[in-house]
């Protein structure tokens, strides 16, 4: 459960898309995107019922990236799936670009504009209630970060998700144990995270967030309880796949990232 699973070719390829975007835009949240790749990959490859050509299809499953700073991973998956051209990745954060440093709802495939933390689970609760009221089978996934769990609004939303018995809602925590400044144990400890979600009325599973097979089988089991919202604590490694960035909070965000650094990142990916 330590996030040590080896990465296969597809996981490496998706990371190269993130590096392309980092180089193209010259900046971006690195570590937070790389810890997310397998979670999003399995969701978009195997779980979510979505239509890239019809992003507003009412019966689609919804994936809300509440930790919006991990958007480069989401952009990589959405581009790979054809929601928008892959070339858009190279312009991220540039003036007039489709893609910015945090995801916005006008981007095809992005469900909600996030970036300020602690919003996505509440929105997910509202969407899940709407799906139930409309009799749709759509499922709602909200992906949260560790640091984001410091926000009180997340726990307000968790209480409500439980009250409403939203079995169509799943909170996935990208549990890489690092936030911007340093380790969560140093900044604001979350232990015991599984017990916290259980106490708030979620049915909880833990999984290696880089183990594609384990993620698939865990997500296939949803809902874990027919009357409760589900939580998946995905143990991940911040910066996963780039050996010198793994677990280093200095790689949380880079405001300047030149071609030489991007090449270093690519070389690191070649040697996984």
């Amino acid at each position, binding site marked *: 459960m330590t996030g040590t699973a080896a990465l296969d070719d597809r996981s490496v390829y998706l990371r190269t898309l993130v590096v392309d975007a980092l180089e193209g835009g010259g900046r971006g949240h690195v570590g937070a995107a790389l810890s997310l790749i397998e979670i999003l990959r399995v969701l978009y490859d195997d779980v979510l019922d979505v239509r890239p050509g019809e992003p507003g299809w009412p019966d689609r499953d919804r994936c809300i990236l509440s930790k919006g700073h991990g958007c480069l991973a989401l952009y990589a998956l959405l581009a790979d799936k054809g929601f928008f051209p892959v070339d858009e990745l190279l312009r991220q954060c540039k003036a007039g670009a489709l893609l910015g440093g945090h995801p916005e709802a006008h981007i095809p495939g992005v469900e909600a504009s996030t970036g300020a933390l602690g919003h996505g689970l509440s929105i997910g609760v509202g969407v899940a209630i*709407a799906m139930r009221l409309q009799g749709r089978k759509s499922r709602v996934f909200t992906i949260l970060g560790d640091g984001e769990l410091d926000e009180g609004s997340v726990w*307000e939303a968790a209480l409500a998700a439980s009250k409403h018995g939203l079995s169509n809602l799943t909170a996935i925590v990208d549990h890489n144990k690092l936030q911007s400044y340093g380790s969560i144990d140093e900044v604001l400890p979350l232990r015991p995270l599984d017990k916290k979600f259980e106490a708030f009325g979620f049915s909880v599973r833990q999984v290696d967030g880089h183990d594609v097979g384990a993620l698939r089988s865990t997500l296939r089991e949803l809902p874990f309880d027919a009357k409760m919202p589900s939580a998946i604590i995905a143990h991940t490694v911040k910066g996963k796949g780039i050996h010198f960035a793994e677990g280093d909070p200095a790689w949380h965000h880079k405001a300047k990232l030149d071609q030489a650094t991007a090449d270093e990142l690519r070389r690191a990916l070649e040697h996984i």
Partner: protein
Amino acid sequence: MRQTAMNAVFELAKRDPRVVFIGSDLGSGTLDAMKKEMPERFFMEGVSEAHIIGMAAGLAMNGYIPYINTIATFLTRRCLEQIAIDLCLHDLPVRLLASGGGVVYAPLGPTHMAIDDVGLLRTLPGMTIVAPSDADEMQRTMNATLNFPGPVYVRIAKGGDPIVSRPENGFEIGRPIVLREPGDVLIISSGVMTARALHAAELLGERGVEAGVLHVHTIKPLDVEAIVRVARVPSLLVTVEEHSLVNGLGSAVAEVIVDRNVMKPLLRLGLPDAFSSLYGSQDDVLRAAGLLAPQLVDSILAAVERVGVPL
């Protein structure tokens, strides 16, 4: 006025299946009839305003029109970011019904007095702010909110306020109403201060000063052209608001005066930029701020003299 707003939610919900109600631990019995008749569209959530805004956004993203009710200060100060991002940035039709706008909750102290709600929300792109003058206008406001695009904040007053709005004036969000034609002076007011402005205008008439009243129920978006048009006649403009003088109606009108080069003296009357622990009643706090009708008259007469309005 609040009862009118609550009843209107139920009536709108009967007419339109998109309407849902969300309360934040409101008083026992709130909208019981709606809860009984359509429990699936009645949500009484916890004391979790920030979450409620996000939840409403999620519902609105999928075709619903959520009407949220709680106390104005909690609805604005506490969840400003949720309102900005979840509602305004996404341009979602969520309606914020704010109880106790202004100093209605004077006896409950500064935590409950919404002296800054308009200012907080006026800064947010895409927000609409409506402060009806009385229960009748609240009914018109509520009807108008149903199909209005984007988020709308509705300021609810104490209740039992005198009815000064008139059906023949019609009602449209964003269109101010001339309740009394401008003369030497034009008083521009919103919310329940319009009743006091009308009273002040009558008293001014007895003192030989002709004063008009422009009721600006919609503070944002402000009908700039209407204000510029009406402001041509009088020699003195006066704004009257139950809000801090920072970033409320008076500030909005001052922006118009400057931006459009109206070049008329402007007297801004409102609450001081301070928390009040006076307690007492709404009128006690208004009196302390010089906002009761006879006090408005004194301030306006002094300004008339000061700026040399030709009478």
